[in-house]
């Protein structure tokens, strides 16, 4: 095969039908799910800082979790929510859960059903799900000023006054740390702007990958204590707490898919340069 033929083949491959690319991506994502490789996971600094923020709390400290994601971003955020719950329950923290998205309540129930029984956590004493309230930043403002006015009942319509762990909890200032699991609006940004910044209560967050770049300046400015970024971040948090979950099991597929996309970019550019060189030579 001479050099020109070889270059022609490369250029032709650069114009392959996009359905071939779709099929390749599907195969590349599916195979590692069926045949896991077990690549080692190394925590990044931002995930480590998030872990440290939660780890700084101890027995009996009040942790406020906010669930604002739905089924479409569940693969990214649910693993980190479960990992943080593992962490919180293992250290004996009091976990209070609110939701800014209606779907968030379903996600919270799923996560609690999976994790709480492993630590014999008792509802009303170790954790409470206050539930969803509509209003976005209005809810955050309400929690900041007067939580009991906003939440008269929990998600099961039990009066908040009758829940033991709600004694002495009246506003955001009563919490040691805010942790938001966010996939968009309302979410981390609203908690920073209307919750954490006005009150000074420290905050950390786990977000969908697409939102990470939007909120990373908050982390750098100290308004957030660490960020768990997407499914890789969830896998890192699982590695830090020593409990493998869905985040870790998706990492092989994620790694291989990323590598393939990088190779696509490189190969696509090689064909571009070869084609350009060939057309320059013609003229």
């Amino acid at each position, binding site marked *: 095969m001479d050099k020109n033929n070889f270059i022609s083949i490369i250029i032709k491959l650069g114009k392959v039908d996009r*359905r071939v690319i*779709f099929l390749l*991506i599907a195969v590349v*994502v*599916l195979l590692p*799910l*069926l045949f896991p490789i077990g690549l080692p996971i190394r925590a990044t600094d931002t995930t480590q800082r998030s872990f440290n923020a939660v780890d700084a709390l101890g027995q009996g400290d009040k942790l406020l979790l906010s669930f604002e994601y739905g089924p*479409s*971003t*569940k*693969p*990214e955020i649910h693993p980190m929510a479960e990992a943080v719950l593992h962490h919180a329950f293992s250290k004996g923290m009091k976990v209070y859960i609110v939701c800014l998205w*209606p779907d968030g309540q379903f996600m919270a129930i799923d996560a609690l059903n999976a994790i709480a029984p492993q630590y014999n956590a008792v509802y009303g004493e170790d954790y409470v799900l206050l539930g*969803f*309230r*509509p*209003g976005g*930043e209005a809810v955050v403002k309400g929690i900041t000023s007067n939580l009991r006015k906003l939440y*008269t*009942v929990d998600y099961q319509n039990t009066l908040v006054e009758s829940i033991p762990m709600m004694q002495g909890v009246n506003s955001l200032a009563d919490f040691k740390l805010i942790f938001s699991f966010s996939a968009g609006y309302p979410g981390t*940004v*609203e908690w*920073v*702007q*209307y919750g954490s*910044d*006005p009150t000074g209560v420290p905050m950390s967050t786990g977000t*969908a*990958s*697409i939102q*990470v*770049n939007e909120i990373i*300046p*908050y982390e*750098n*400015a*100290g*308004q957030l204590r660490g960020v768990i*970024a*997407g*499914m*890789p971040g969830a896998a890192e948090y699982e590695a830090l707490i020593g409990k493998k979950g*869905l985040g870790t099991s*998706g990492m092989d*597929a*994620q790694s291989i*898919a*990323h590598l393939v*996309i990088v190779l696509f970019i490189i190969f696509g550019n090689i064909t571009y340069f070869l084609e350009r060189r060939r057309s320059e030579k013609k003229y």
Partner: protein
Amino acid sequence: MYTTEIIGAWFAVFLTLAIFSFLYKDNPFYKAAEHLFVGVSAGYWASTFFWTQIQPNLFGRLWPKLTEEPSGIKAAWYGIYDFFGWFHEGIFPGGGIDKGHELHLFYLIPFLLGIFMLLRLSRKLGWLARWSMAYVVGLAAGLRLYGFLNSNILAQVRGSALSLFDGWGTAINSIIIIVGTLTGLFYFFFSKEHTGVFGKISRVGIWFLMVSFGAAFGFAVMGRISLLIGRFYDLIQFSGSQYYHATYWLLALIVIILGFQAFRERGRSTEEA
């Protein structure tokens, strides 16, 4: 495994594969799923917002649960409530709505503005929706102004402060961040032409913005692949025997039908040629 779960799994798999079939080409399966999604979404969100906002927070404040027998104007007011209750007892349960609120007739204002919003559908009275829009926009403008000023400007400026005495690495990184932030902001100043020194500064700003966009691209890819992994997890789960191998059957069905359609179209175009 309950029958409703099995039926639900088959629906979920079919709809997932129907939407994925768009990757082959636009086809009736995809169009059907797309239109069903549009209709179901609209109904889902309308129901959700009604039951989580309008019924408890609006009606719950206009007609809260009665603690004693009403009299006079209050009785007349609750008479209206009982009339509505005749149409749907779920929305207007007997004796008032028990959501822990007190009577606030003040909330007739958002009720009226809400009705005005719905009048947008009428050609003659649609202009009334402007009043409702005005309230929403005005409130959002006032609310956001402070939040963005405090958290997105002042705190960010504070966060950009130089840390020159925490080691060489921190000092250099700190300088890079502030240079990048300032040059990036220079780029966004479009009132002056980007020529000369100003042009060179904004060019440096573009480089930092490009790095940021590249990182955003990387995270976007990461997010999308994660969502794809999530869908594949579900398809793998629903391929199990407890769901009667839904994934395999439905995948085979869609592939066969689309394949047959493609074969027929090719035959037709060969004939025409």
